[in-house]
């Protein structure tokens, strides 16, 4: 296979007209107030994660003696500990800031792997077809019937969960949806008239695939790269809440709630703040992704 096409499919985006399309989409995106607000929230969370060491008022791992009451209970929000302390007397705000790193790393990595895998298999199913394509899509059907959370639980039970293992486990259950969408789109592209025209001109299959099919999949891939992160973030938080996420003492938002569950009636801030953080992150990715789909996908315009 001529690998040149792979390279050239990237330069495809240099074509005249693409600049206009991008700036048009960008202007349409900016007009969506909700999505722009969500993007702002996202930027704040990302900055908080990047600058966690600078922003955190305390060491997230240090168990403060003065961080617990004399009876050994966690402290509610105060001037010293802005969001209160957890059951071990650690500063909740600092743990939340570092926890943002866990959520974002797993969100981006797991979803990235899922999107790559899903796109690859979806293209094979939709473009290659035949026995291999059919087998790939039957496997996708099978995985769709498999309960994702339980599969993730089973996989996390097999491997000892670390940051990367959790990301991998989530990717292994999440690629299915991407594959489904990409498959449907590749199929309709492969049968479209302009592909027929290119084929009748005698173009080879790698040329068609890399120069004509894949560039058309770019908007979908782009949309799923943001939309999918919210599912990933929620799944990571859920696994951590079930006690099979990243290993303590590494801070993770779901893990903080897992650790403080037994005490939450008296210390609701230990559930409220991390819960709010998870909700905001997932919601922001959902809203931005939804707006991107609106802007980039003409068939969805005004519907979503």
């Amino acid at each position, binding site marked *: 296979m001529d690998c040149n096409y792979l390279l050239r499919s990237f330069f495809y985006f240099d074509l005249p007209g693409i600049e206009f399309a991008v700036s048009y989409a960008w202007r349409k995106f900016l007009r969506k107030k*909700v999505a722009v607000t969500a993007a702002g929230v996202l930027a704040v969370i990302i900055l908080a994660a990047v600058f966690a060491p600078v922003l955190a008022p305390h060491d997230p791992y240090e168990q403060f003696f003065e961080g617990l009451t004399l009876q050994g209970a966690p402290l509610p929000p105060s001037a010293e500990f802005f969001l209160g302390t957890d059951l071990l007397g650690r500063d909740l705000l600092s743990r939340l800031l570092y926890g943002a790193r866990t959520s974002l790393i797993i969100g981006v990595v797991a979803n990235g792997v899922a999107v790559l895998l899903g796109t690859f298999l979806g293209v094979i199913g939709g473009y290659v077809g035949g026995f291999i394509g059919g087998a790939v899509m*039957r*496997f996708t*059907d*099978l995985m769709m*019937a*498999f*309960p*994702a*959370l*339980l*599969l993730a*639980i*089973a*996989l996390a*039970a*097999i491997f000892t969960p670390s940051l990367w293992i959790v990301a991998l486990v989530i990717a292994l259950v999440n690629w299915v949806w991407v594959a489904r969408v990409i498959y449907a789109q590749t199929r309709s592209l492969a049968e479209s008239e302009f592909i027929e025209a290119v084929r009748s001109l005698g173009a080879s299959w790698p040329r068609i695939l890399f120069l004509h099919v894949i560039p058309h999949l770019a908007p979908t891939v782009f949309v799923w790269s943001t939309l999918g992160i*919210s599912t990933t973030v*929620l799944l990571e*938080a*859920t696994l951590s*809440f*079930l*006690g*099979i996420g990243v290993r303590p003492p590494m801070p993770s938002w*779901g893990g903080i*709630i897992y650790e403080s*569950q037994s005490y*939450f*009636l008296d210390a*609701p801030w230990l*559930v*409220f703040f*991390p*819960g709010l953080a*998870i*909700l905001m992150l*997932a*919601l922001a990715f*959902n*809203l931005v992704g*939804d707006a991107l789909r609106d802007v980039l996908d003409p068939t969805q315009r*005004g*519907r*979503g």
Partner: protein
Amino acid sequence: MFLFLAKRFGASGLIVIGITFITFLLSYFIPADPVRMLAGRSATQETVESIRHQLGLDQPLPVQYLKYLGRLVQGDLGRSYKQKTQVAELIASRMPATLKLLVGAIFFEVLFGIPAGIFAASRRGRKADNLAMIASFVGVSAPQFVVGLLLLWVFAYKMALYPLGGYGGLSHLILPAVTLGITGGGWYSRMMRSSMVDVLQQDYIRTARAKGVRESAVVLVHGLRNAVLPVIAMIGMDIGFFMSWTVVVESVYGWPGIGQLTWQSIQVIDTPVIMGVTLVAALAIVIGNFMADLIMPLIDPRLRVR
């Protein structure tokens, strides 16, 4: 019609076989060696080998898989490592509680989701539509364990309207059912909206409007019957999804169903139970899909011709 159902039934059967293969592989690759666990630490090599032989673990993989299938057909899901009972019995004893929760959750998500979607679609592009869609995204993005804990704190602890978890009648059921239904409610309202928006653009709706049919009747009588189809297909899938998502809700509320069983098994890594639940949940997804295939032609006569 009959041929279509027969085909779907065959496809479901193949998927079930595929699922058993995955659960078999998963339990096969789980590092904890069941032989060592049975034989104990001080067992000699010979004892270990003989137990391995007794359990059939020294046979080739395909043979083991066929035997595993044979046991499954007889309803044998293996024995729990920790609770010395049959996994199938454990699951069966927990099933009624989970089914109760499932019915409650589906009731709530349909109750919230479908009217919200219809409402948003009929006010498409206006403020009410935007607000409803943001609300639906909040429902979709809210982690269930957080929703569950917060509902418990507000309604059961502070306001003391409902019991603080546990199993029982309607008052026990409401909070867990709402928690489990909130994500689905969000999805349903989005799905209902987009499907209704599509339907309302069709020619027969314009005809109905031109005849002078009231707008409410256009939406609820003419539109709904077509627009609700994808949502019904989704309910079929949900029955299975809930089987796995109850893990979270049941562990929060102490609801003694399959989810709690799974959660307890996760804590002690009781693999046979986790695999058994996975298999049952996957089976529920397949059955749910098949049921949706059965129900849809009753609502949509066009599907009967296929």
